[in-house]
C-alpha cells in the first residue's frame, strides 16, 4: 500500500518528447513505474523508447487507461496541460515545472479541486512509493527503500537528504512526496496526513517544513486533534534571511505566523518530535520506531 500512486497506477508524461520529459519518463519506468504513454501535440504515432506518444491527454486516456500524469511543460504554458489532464479525468497530476505564475496555478488548482483531482506541485520533485515500485517524479530513485515511513516535504533536495538518512538508518519509506516550493501548491501537509492516516503500511511520518505560510501550523492543529501515528519534523529557515517583505498585506494575511520558531513551537505542542539538526532526522525516526 501507499498513498496516491501504486503498482496499478497508469502513468503518462505530458511533455514527454522534451529533454526532461524523455529523461525522467525513462527513469521512472526503469524504477518500475507503469509508464503507459506520453503526450506532445503533433507527435501522435511516435514512440519515446517504446512509450507511445499521443496528441492529447484525452486520447492517451482513451488508449491507455492512464490515471496519473507527470507534467514537464515550460512555466509560461503549464496551466493549460494541468487543465487538460483534469478534464481528461486524470486523478493524480504531478507538475514538476518550477516558476509557474502563481495566479495561473491558483486558477488551475480551482478546477483541479472542483473536479476532485489531486495536484502534486508545481515545483515538486514528485511522488515515489518504494513499496509499490512506483516513482512519478525526478527524485533519485536509488536512495529510497521500501518501509514504514511516510515523508511529506515542502522542499526537493531536503527530501532527498532526509530519505537518504532514513534509508541509511534502515528506515524504509512507504510514500515520499514533495508538496512543491511555489507560493500556491495543490496539496497541504494536512491533506497528506489524512491519507497517511488511512494507509496501514505507514507507521510514522516525517514532515519537512520551512518558513513562510502556515501549512505547518495547520498540520500541528490536525495532528493534535486526529493523527495518532508518530510524526518527526524538521523546519528549515531558523537563520533564514528576512527576505523581501510583502508590505503590510503579507503580515496582515499571515496574522504573524510563518517563522521557523513559531512552526517548531506549534509542532512541539502537537506532540511532534521536532529535530533541530537536519542530519539527525533519520536517527530520530529510528529511535521512535525501533
Amino acid at each position: 500500500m501507499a498513498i496516491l500512486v501504486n503498482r496499478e497506477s497508469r502513468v503518462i508524461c505530458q511533455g514527454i518528447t522534451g529533454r526532461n520529459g524523455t529523461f525522467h519518463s525513462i527513469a521512472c519506468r526503469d524504477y518500475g513505474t507503469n509508464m503507459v504513454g506520453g503526450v506532445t501535440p503533433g507527435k501522435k504515432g511516435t514512440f519515446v523508447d517504446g512509450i507511445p506518444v499521443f496528441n492529447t491527454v484525452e486520447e492517451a486516456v482513451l488508449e491507455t487507461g492512464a490515471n496519473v500524469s507527470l507534467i514537464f511543460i515550460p512555466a509560461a504554458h503549464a496551466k493549460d496541460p494541468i487543465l487538460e489532464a483534469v478534464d481528461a479525468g486524470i486523478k493524480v497530476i504531478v507538475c514538476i515545472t518550477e516558476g509557474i505564475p502563481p495566479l495561473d496555478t491558483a486558477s488551475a488548482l480551482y478546477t483541479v479541486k472542483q473536479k476532485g483531482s489531486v495536484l502534486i506541485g508545481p515545483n515538486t520533485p514528485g511522488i515515489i512509493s518504494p513499496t509499490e515500485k512506483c516513482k512519478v517524479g525526478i527524485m533519485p530513485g536509488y536512495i529510497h527503500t521500501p518501509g514504514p515511513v511516510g515523508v511529506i516535504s515542502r522542499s526537493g533536495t531536503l527530501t532527498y537528504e532526509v530519505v537518504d538518512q532514513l534509508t541509511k538508518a534502515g528506515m524504509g519509506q512507504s510514500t515520499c512526496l514533495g508538496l512543491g516550493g511555489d507560493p500556491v501548491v495543490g496539496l497541504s501537509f494536512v491533506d497528506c496526513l489524512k491519507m497517511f492516516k488511512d494507509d496501514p503500511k505507514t507507521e510514522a511520518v516525517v514532515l519537512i517544513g520551512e518558513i513562510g505560510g502556515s501549512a505547518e501550523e495547520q498540520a500541528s492543529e490536525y495532528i493534535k486533534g486526529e493523527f495518532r501515528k508518530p510524526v518527526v519534523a524538521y523546519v528549515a529557515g531558523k537563520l533564514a534571511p528576512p527576505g523581501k517583505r510583502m508590505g503590510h498585506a503579507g503580515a496582515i494575511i499571515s496574522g504573524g505566523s510563518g517563522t521557523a520558531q513559531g512552526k517548531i513551537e506549534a509542532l512541539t505542542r502537537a506532540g511532534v518530535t521536532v529535530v533541530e539538526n537536519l542530519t539527525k532526522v533519520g536517527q530520530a525516526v529510528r529511535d521512535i520506531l525501533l
Partner: protein
Amino acid sequence: MNLHEFQSKSILMEKGVSVPRGLVVYDALEALVAARSLKADKIVLKAQAHSGGRGKAGGISVMSIDDDVRSEAGRILRMNLVTNQTGPQGKPVSALLVEEAPQIDEELYLGVVLDRNDGHVTVMASPAGGMDIETIAKESPEKIYLVKVDPLRGLCPFQSRGLAYKLASKNLIANQIAKAVTALYEIFVSYDCTLAEINPLVVSGEKVLALDAKINLDDHALFRRPEMAGLRDRSQEDPVELSARQAGLSYIKLDGDIGCMVNGAGLAMATLDLISIHGGAPANFLDVGGGASEQVVADATNILLDDTRVKVVFINIFGGILRCDVLARGVIRAIKERGLQLPVIARIEGTNIELGRKLFADSGLQIQMIPSLDEAAELVVVKAKELSAS
C-alpha cells in the same frame, strides 16, 4: 520586482484612482521648482526607495511652501535610507516625489495579496489605515475586512461595493472607494503582482486619494509584461544579488564568513541552520537551483570567491536533476580559471555521485570531500574560526 511609489501611483492613475498632485524630481533645485508649481500651501517630499518605514528613517518631510524646500530636498536625495526593512546597509534614494499635502480626514487601508494558504487572491480593506495597520491586524482583526476572490469569476462589482460601504457611509466617498478596490484588484491580476497596496487611502473632503502605494510584481510572470522591465530600478538592488539573479541563481547576502553553495532553497536554508548550530556564520544564501548547468555552477563559484569576506567555501549538494558530475565540472572550471585561494569543503550526494567524486579527486585541486553532512558543517565552522583567529 518592486516598483517605486511614484511608479505605483502612475499605474493607479491609469486605472482611474486619484492620487495627490505631484512631480518626480532628481535634484534639489528641481524639487523647489516642482513644489512651487504645485501651488499648495503644504507640500511633502518623499524619498523614492524600495523600503517601507521611510518616514521614521527621515525620508519623508512635510513642509510649508515657505520653508527651505531646496535644502531639505537635497538632504533627502543624498540620504542612504536605513529603515527596519533595508538592513544596516540601507538603500540609496533614487528620486524624490514632491506632492501637495492634502487635508486628511480619514486614513483607510486597501491591499491585495495571493493567500498562499488557500490559493485565493484576497482583497483586504480597513477603516484603520496608516502605519499601525499591522498592529490593528493582530489586535483588532475584526477591523480588517477580507474578500476571497473566486479565481475564475474574479472580483465582482458588488464585492467592491460591499467593502466600500464597510469603510464609508456617504455615497460619494463609498463610490470612490469601490472604484479604488476594483482598480487595485485589476492591477493585481493583470500585472501578476505579489502585492498591490494603498496605505493609506485617505478621505480628503469629498475626494478619496491614494496617499501612498506599493506594487510589487512577480518575477515569474514578467514575461507577460515585457514593457514593465523598463520600470526596474537596479540601483535599489544589491549588485551581487542582481548579477546572481541574472546568472539564474538565488543569492542573498548575509553577515558571516562561510560561503555556501547549495542546491534547493530548502537544503540551502537547512545548511545555514546547520552552520549556525555548529557556531558558525554563513556569508550568504545561495541556491544554484534544480537544473543548473555547468556554467551556472561556475558562475555561482565565482560569486562566492569574489566575496572578500568569505574565508571558507562550503559546497553542499544533493543531486537530483542537478547531476554531481555537472556540479563538479562547474566548480573545477571556475577554480582553475582563477586559481584557488580559499579552502573548499564539499559534501556531495545523489545522482552521478561516483562520477562527481572522481572528477573532484582527479582535479588536483585541494577540495576536501566529507561524506557526512554534519561532520562537513562542523569542519567548515572550525576552519572558518581558525582562519579568523590567524
